[in-house]
C-alpha cells in the first residue's frame, strides 16, 4: 500500500486546525479525499480490478498473504462494518462467495479465508472497509486460529453480556424474568452508561 507523503510539523499543525473547524460532513468528505482506496475506486490510483459492479470492486492485493489474494471493497467510503447498510453488506458477501468460488476453480487451491478487521485493535490498516479473500493451501501458516476450551462460567458471562445487546440489535424484546441464574443487574446498568460509540472507533483512522 502506498504511504501518504510526510508532513512538516507546521503543515501538521495547520492540518489539525483545519480538522477541528470542520463540520461532520466536511470531515467525511476530507476522509474520502485522503483515502487511498477511494482513489483506487475512482481510478486515480491504478489497480488490477478483478470484479466491478455499481456498488463494489475487487482488486488484487499487491502485498498479498498468498498469490491471488483479493481485496473486495464497497465503492462508498465506510471505515468499519457496522456503518454499512444491510443491503450493501449482504451484497459484498455474495460477491465474496462468487470470487471465492472462482479462486477455488482457477487458482487450484483447496480453501479460502475470508477476513475482516474492524478497528485498529483488530489489525485494520486501511481506513476503508474491505473484505480479504485469501487463497489457502494446507500448511501455509496464514491465519491460524488456535481454539481453546473455555469454562462454563466464562461462557455464561459472555452470554449475559452480549445477548441483550444482540437481541436489542434484532429488535427482540427480552422477557423480564431472565433465564440466567448469574446476577447481572449491577453490571448491566454500568454497561448501559458507557455504551461504545462506533463513530469513535471509525474515526480513529482520520
Amino acid at each position: 500500500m502506498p504511504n501518504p507523503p510526510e508532513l512538516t510539523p507546521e503543515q501538521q499543525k495547520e492540518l489539525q486546525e483545519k480538522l477541528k473547524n470542520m463540520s461532520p460532513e466536511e470531515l467525511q468528505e476530507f476522509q474520502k479525499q485522503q483515502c487511498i482506496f477511494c482513489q483506487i475506486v475512482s481510478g486515480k490510483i491504478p489497480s488490477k480490478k478483478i470484479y466491478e459492479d455499481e456498488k463494489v470492486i475487487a482488486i488484487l492485493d499487491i502485498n498479498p498473504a498468498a498469490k491471488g489474494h483479493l481485496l473486495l471493497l464497497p465503492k462508498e467510503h465506510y471505515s468499519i462494518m457496522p456503518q454499512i447498510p444491510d443491503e450493501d453488506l449482504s451484497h459484498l458477501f455474495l460477491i465474496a462467495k462468487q470470487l471465492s468460488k472462482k479462486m477455488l476453480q482457477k487458482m487450484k487451491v483447496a480453501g479460502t479465508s475470508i477476513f475482516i478487521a474492524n478497528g485498529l485493535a483488530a489489525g485494520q490498516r486501511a481506513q476503508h472497509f474491505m473484505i480479504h479473500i485469501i487463497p489457502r493451501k494446507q500448511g501455509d501458516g496464514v491465519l491460524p486460529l488456535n481454539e481453546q476450551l473455555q469454562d462454563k462460567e466464562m461462557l455464561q458471562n459472555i452470554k449475559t453480556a452480549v445477548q441483550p445487546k444482540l437481541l436489542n440489535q434484532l429488535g427482540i424484546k427480552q422477557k423480564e424474568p431472565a433465564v440466567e441464574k448469574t446476577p447481572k443487574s449491577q453490571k448491566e446498568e454500568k454497561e448501559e452508561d458507557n455504551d461504545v460509540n462506533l463513530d469513535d472507533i471509525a474515526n480513529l483512522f482520520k
Partner: protein
Amino acid sequence: MGCEYCEIAAGNSKSLILHQDAEIVVAVKDTSVIPGQITVFPTEHHPIMELVPDNILQKCSIMANKVSVAIFEGLDTTGTNVIIQNGTAAGQNRPHFAIEIIPRRENDGLDFQWPQKQLTEDELGYLFNELTEDVPEEKPAIKPKKVSGKDNYLLKSLKRKA
C-alpha cells in the same frame, strides 16, 4: 459421528445459544481463540460457503454484523475480526459453514497479520489474467491435436453431431 454445529442447533451441546431461528444460529462455543468469540452459522448443514444458498449467506452476513456491534457494546472491545475458514486447507475443522466474530483489544496477544509477499508486475499480470478469465462451465470435450488414430472416427462423429 454427528456434526458439532448441527448438535449445537439441536440443543445437544455445552455451547450456549444467543439466538436461533429456522435459518440461523448464533452461539458461544465452548472453544474459542479468545473468550468472547461468537459463531454465526446456518441452521441447515452446508459444508462450505460455495454451497450455502445466497439468501442464507446474506442473512448470516447481516447477523455477523449485528453480533459484531453487540460485542463492541457488550464486551466493551475496540475491534472485531470477522473470519470464515472455508475448506480444510483454510483451517476449517468442522464440516459446517460458519462465520467467527472475534473481539479484539489492544495488546490482547492475538496477531492475525500474515507475512506479506512481494509480487512482480509479471506475477500480478498473470494472476489478473487467471482471475478475470471466465471459468468455463463445461470442459471442452476434445483436443483435436492430441487425438490418437484409434479415437479419430468417434471424435469426428462427435464433432459432426455438435
